[in-house]
Structure formats: structure tokens, C-alpha cells
């Protein structure tokens, strides 16, 4: 029988069962390792896209781009998400983890898959990029490595669902699960759909690469692959929104403005977020406009609305808590008095703003069938997802890590001065990457071409405007800033794990989790939890930006297609 000993964190009062704690550590460390590997490949990609530097040759570029995409979009993110699932179930619900042996088996499969994938890609015969569109073929081990990783992650999801059952049976909570756990449930549900879709397409592709299947239909491949490739990024969205709610509660003692509204928004994610995959098919002739418009607009907008709900309620709950604790003057005193020197807060808030303003607005623009034609398959696409996945998800995960290291590893964070600046460096650099890639994409620069000067293409020429070259140079500079920020994160976290002062059972000098704001505090000063004028003003700024940008793109489209 498995041992079920646990320790209670002296700073947070959270219960860490030994099996959960070890799995959390293993997944978190693996995540940071793959972030480092993927980030370094990202530096090489950025330095090659910068035409004046143009670091890598064509073959190396596509190999490095493949490695970059898989390490940061899949391996780093999913290892961390598995850690989030175990934290949101076993730790937040205060119960043992279901079947830790299966959880370790899942972890082992994920490590084997991720390492195997890196080896296969770096051998140079699998430069098919993350999308690996058939009939472009990679060695069988490439597909096998992804399948192994996906099976491991699927096991992790089922361990999470099993842990929910354990908690319910052991009655470790009353009523509904906490909102953060509900967000993790949303992420796990999307993960199951994602991974099953991956299996549906990667298993036959593996058989095809082994010569056992004659042909893979290119369009069917694209359709099913994107149910895997895009939905995997929707796991991120659900997970990082859950992290936002967690950080609001941890740092401010904030209660959600309305549990019902926030949970309903997560339900909208469960039902509709994954169908956004269709926006990758908006120029594919094999699927109808009905399919495209329903999936990328009508139904998808319910998920967009859910994101806007979260984007309003997370800062709104922080504002309500800050006002309840006395920062009630004017519109933005609550925000000015927030702990901007604490990387957990600054990382979370930059993630929230970047995800909404850069990632969210551009995602809706790209998702509209007509204006998508302006930027389809251009650098605008990576520009968009660097805002959602990197500024949004990665920065939120980094922010949580600063809080988790002392709680989970019982080590003090080292280099606190650098840690204070790290989210700003990373957020600024990545926002630059996002903006300048989108700028280049708007000028028509293709997403996947090694050289926009079209060298060595046998006479193909196209003159992009000089501004496109400037955009790529500015992107290169932004990549350098972002990589410095990312490297600083890895150095701080690895340094803290190895050399940080051991905390043991000793309580930290500073309070590590805020006391929940009480109903009396909320109603003091004659206020109410719903009095969030500052957040409403920010939301209005968002809506105006959204509407302006949306209509500017229709204007561009009108100029592209003159009507006589």
C-alpha cells in the first residue's frame, strides 16, 4: 500500500502529500529544462529572421525552428500544466494523489518522448516543423516520440480526475471545488480532447512513415492535427487563467467577483474554445464557409466572451480586495499600490494585459474569415501566439513559480533584485517579438520562409518594403531582450533550488499568502465587492482598442480588394 504521509507548509497551511510533492517537483524541473532548451533555439530563430544577421543556413533554420516549437509550445508548457493539475487537485483539495505509480509512469513516458523527440530532430532528418504536415515525412521515431509524450500527458490527466474522486470520497472539501481547481478541470478536459485528437492523427502517420499505410490525406491531416496543435494552446489558456485567479487569491486574499459567472465562463471554454482550431483552415478549399464561420466566429465568440469575463473579473477581484483593504482613493490607487516589485504579481499582471490586448484582439481578427486573408500564414500568426502562449501563459507560469519555489521546495529565492526585473524584461521582450512579427506579417512576410530575400530559390524574387526588414531587425532585438529575461528566470529558479537558503519547517519572515478578505472588509467604507470603477475603465479602453483595430483591418481589406 502506498504511503500517504504529508507535510503542512508552515507559510501557507497547504498539505503536501509526499507522492504529490515529488511529482510536482519532477514535472516543474522538467518544464524549466525544456523551456531553457526551447528558448535557446528561439534565440537562433530570431537571429536568423533578422536579415542583417541571418545566422543559420536554411537546413539548420528549419531544424532549429522545429525544435523551438516543440520544446516551448509542447514540452515546457505541458510538463508545467501537469504540475498545475496535481497542485490544483491534491494540494488545493488536501488529499492524496490517485495512483502515484501511474503518475510516475506518465512522467517517465513524457520525459522519454521529449528527449527522443529532441534527439530525432537534432539529427537533422525531421525538420518538418511542429505542424509536420503530411505528405512531408519525418522518421517514425519523430511521431513515436510525440505519441509517447501524449500518452504520458493523458495518464497525468486521468490521475488528476482520479484525485478529484479521491477528494470527494474522502470528503476533504465541502460543496463545490475551489475556482482554481475548476479552472484546472477545464484545462484537463481540453487536454483529453487534444491528446485523443493527436493520437487519431499521429498513429496513422506513424504507420505511414513505417510504410504500413499507403497515404495520408493532406487536408484530413491538417484538420485533425489542428485539433491537437491548436487545442494544446487552449489547455494553456485555461491553465493560465486558473493561475491568474490563484495569484489574485494568494497575494490579495481576493474572492472572485462572482463564482457563478467565472465558472460559467470556464464552461464556455469547455464547450467552445477548442473549435478555434478551424481558423487554421480558413483558406482550405475542402471545408465549407458554414464550417469555417460557425467554428471560428459564431460559436467561438462565446469562448472569446468567456476570456473577456476572466479579463474583467481577475483584475476586478484584485481591485475589490485592494479597495476593501483601504486603497480606495480615485480610480487607480488600488493598482498603483499593488506589489509591482513582486515578480509573482508583475508577471501575472503583464500576462493578463499582454494576453488580452495583444493576443486576444489579434486572435479575433485572425479568426474572422474575411480579414484573415490579409495575414493568413504570414508572420502575423507567430506574432499572435507569442502574445498568447509566451506573454500570456509562460509569464503566468513563471509568476507562479516564484511563489511555488519557497512553498514546494522550501528554498528561498536567490537574486531577488534580478527577480524583481525579470518579468518586465521578459514581458517587454516578448511583447516586442509579438508586435514586430505581427507588423512584418501585416506587410505580407511569410511565416515559414527562411529568407525573405528569397536567396537560393532559383530566381524567385519578391521585394518586400524596407519596413519589413526593419520589423525583423526590431524582432531580433526584442528576442535578445526576451532571451535575457528567460535566461534570468532559469538562472534564478535553478540557483534557488541549488543554492537558496533552506527554509525547512521555519516560517518565512514575510507573509506568503494573504488572509482572505472578509465580508466585513468588503462592505466597510460603504463599498461593495462590485464597485470596481478602475477595472471598468480599463475594460472600456480594451473595448475601444478592440473595435478600432477590428475596423482598421476591414479598412485594409477594402483597400486590398477594391470595389468598382
Amino acid at each position, binding site marked *: 500500500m502506498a504511503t500517504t504521509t504529508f507535510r503542512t507548509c508552515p507559510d501557507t497551511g497547504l498539505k503536501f502529500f509526499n507522492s504529490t510533492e515529488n511529482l510536482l517537483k519532477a514535472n516543474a524541473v522538467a518544464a524549466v529544462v525544456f523551456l531553457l532548451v526551447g528558448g535557446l533555439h528561439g534565440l537562433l530563430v530570431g537571429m536568423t529572421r533578422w536579415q542583417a544577421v541571418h545566422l543559420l543556413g536554411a537546413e539548420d533554420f528549419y531544424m532549429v525552428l522545429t525544435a523551438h516549437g516543440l520544446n516551448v509550445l509542447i514540452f515546457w508548457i505541458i510538463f508545467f500544466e501537469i504540475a498545475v493539475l496535481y497542485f490544483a487537485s491534491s494540494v488545493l483539495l488536501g488529499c492524496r494523489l490517485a495512483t502515484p505509480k501511474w503518475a510516475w509512469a506518465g512522467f517517465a513516458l513524457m520525459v522519454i518522448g521529449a528527449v527522443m523527440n529532441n534527439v530525432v530532430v537534432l539529427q537533422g532528418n525531421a525538420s518538418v516543423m511542429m505542424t509536420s504536415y503530411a505528405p512531408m515525412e519525418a522518421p517514425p521515431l519523430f511521431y513515436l516520440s510525440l505519441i509517447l509524450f501524449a500518452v504520458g500527458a493523458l495518464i497525468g490527466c486521468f490521475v488528476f480526475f482520479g484525485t478529484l474522486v479521491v477528494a470527494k470520497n474522502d470528503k476533504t472539501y465541502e460543496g463545490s471545488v475551489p475556482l482554481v481547481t475548476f479552472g484546472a478541470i477545464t484545462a484537463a478536459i481540453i487536454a*483529453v480532447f487534444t491528446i485523443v485528437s493527436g493520437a487519431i492523427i499521429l498513429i496513422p502517420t506513424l504507420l505511414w512513415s513505417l510504410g504500413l499505410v499507403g497515404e495520408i490525406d493532406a487536408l484530413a491531416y491538417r484538420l485533425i492535427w489542428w485539433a491537437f496543435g491548436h487545442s494544446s494552446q487552449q489547455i494553456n489558456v485555461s491553465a493560465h487563467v486558473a493561475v491568474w485567479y490563484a495569484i489574485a487569491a494568494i497575494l490579495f486574499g481576493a474572492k472572485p467577483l462572482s463564482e457563478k459567472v467565472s465558472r460559467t465562463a470556464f464552461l464556455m471554454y469547455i464547450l467552445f474554445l*477548442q473549435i478555434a482550431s478551424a481558423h487554421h483552415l480558413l483558406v482550405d478549399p*475542402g*471545408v465549407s464557409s458554414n464550417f469555417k464561420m460557425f467554428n471560428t466566429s459564431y460559436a467561438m465568440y462565446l469562448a472569446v466572451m468567456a476570456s473577456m469575463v476572466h479579463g474583467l473579473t481577475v483584475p476586478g477581484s484584485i481591485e475589490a480586495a485592494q479597495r476593501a483593504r483601504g486603497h480606495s482613493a480615485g480610480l487607480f490607487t488600488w493598482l498603483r499600490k499593488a506589489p509591482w516589485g513582486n515578480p509573482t504579481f508583475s508577471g501575472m499582471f503583464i500576462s493578463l494585459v499582454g494576453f488580452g490586448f495583444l493576443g486576444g484582439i489579434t486572435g479575433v481578427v485572425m479568426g474572422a474569415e474575411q480579414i484573415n486573408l490579409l495575414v493568413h500564414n504570414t508572420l502575423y500568426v507567430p506574432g499572435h501566439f507569442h502574445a498568447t502562449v509566451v506573454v500570456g501563459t509562460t509569464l503566468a507560469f513563471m509568476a507562479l513559480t516564484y511563489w511555488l519555489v519557497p512553498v514546494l521546495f522550501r528554498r528561498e529565492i536567490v537574486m531577488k533584485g534580478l527577480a524583481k526585473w525579470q518579468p518586465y524584461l521578459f514581458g517587454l521582450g516578448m511583447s516586442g517579438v509579438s508586435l514586430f512579427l505581427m507588423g512584418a506579417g501585416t506587410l505580407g512576410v511569410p511565416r515559414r520562409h527562411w529568407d525573405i530575400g528569397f536567396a537560393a530559390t532559383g530566381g524567385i524574387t519578391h521585394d518586400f518594403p524596407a519596413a519589413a526588414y526593419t520589423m525583423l531587425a526590431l524582432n531580433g532585438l526584442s528576442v535578445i531582450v526576451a532571451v535575457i529575461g528567460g535566461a534570468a528566470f532559469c538562472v534564478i529558479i535553478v540557483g534557488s533550488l541549488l543554492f537558496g537558503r533552506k527554509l525547512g519547517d521555519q516560517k518565512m519572515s514575510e507573509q506568503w499568502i494573504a488572509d482572505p478578505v472578509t465580508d466585513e472588509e468588503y462592505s466597510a467604507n460603504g463599498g461593495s465587492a462590485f464597485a470596481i470603477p478602475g477595472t471598468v475603465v480599463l475594460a472600456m479602453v480594451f473595448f475601444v482598442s478592440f473595435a478600432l483595430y477590428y475596423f482598421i483591418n476591414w479598412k485594409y481589406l477594402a483597400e486590398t480588394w477594391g470595389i468598382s
Partner: protein
Amino acid sequence: MSDQDQADSGEVPMMQKLLDNPFLLLFLGVASPALLYLVWGLAEIFTIPVR
């Protein structure tokens, strides 16, 4: 029946029951995109006339 009436009678509202059931949510979260995206999309692709 209003939320207040349901609360008074101790009955859990249907929406609450749905949100508290992770396995029902799992079914919906897999079935919904499977039908709207995968099945619909594949049906269109595989009914494209060959000539």
C-alpha cells in the same frame, strides 16, 4: 423555481449539478468539439467529389 426557492428547499440547481460533475463536463468537452469540428469537418472533406 427561483434560485432562492431552490436554496430554501435544499435542492441543488441543475446548472450547479452540471458544474460539480467533472465527468459530465469531460463528456461535453470532448463531444462538443468532436462533433462541431472533427466530425463535421471530416464529413465535408470525405464527401468532396473525386471528379
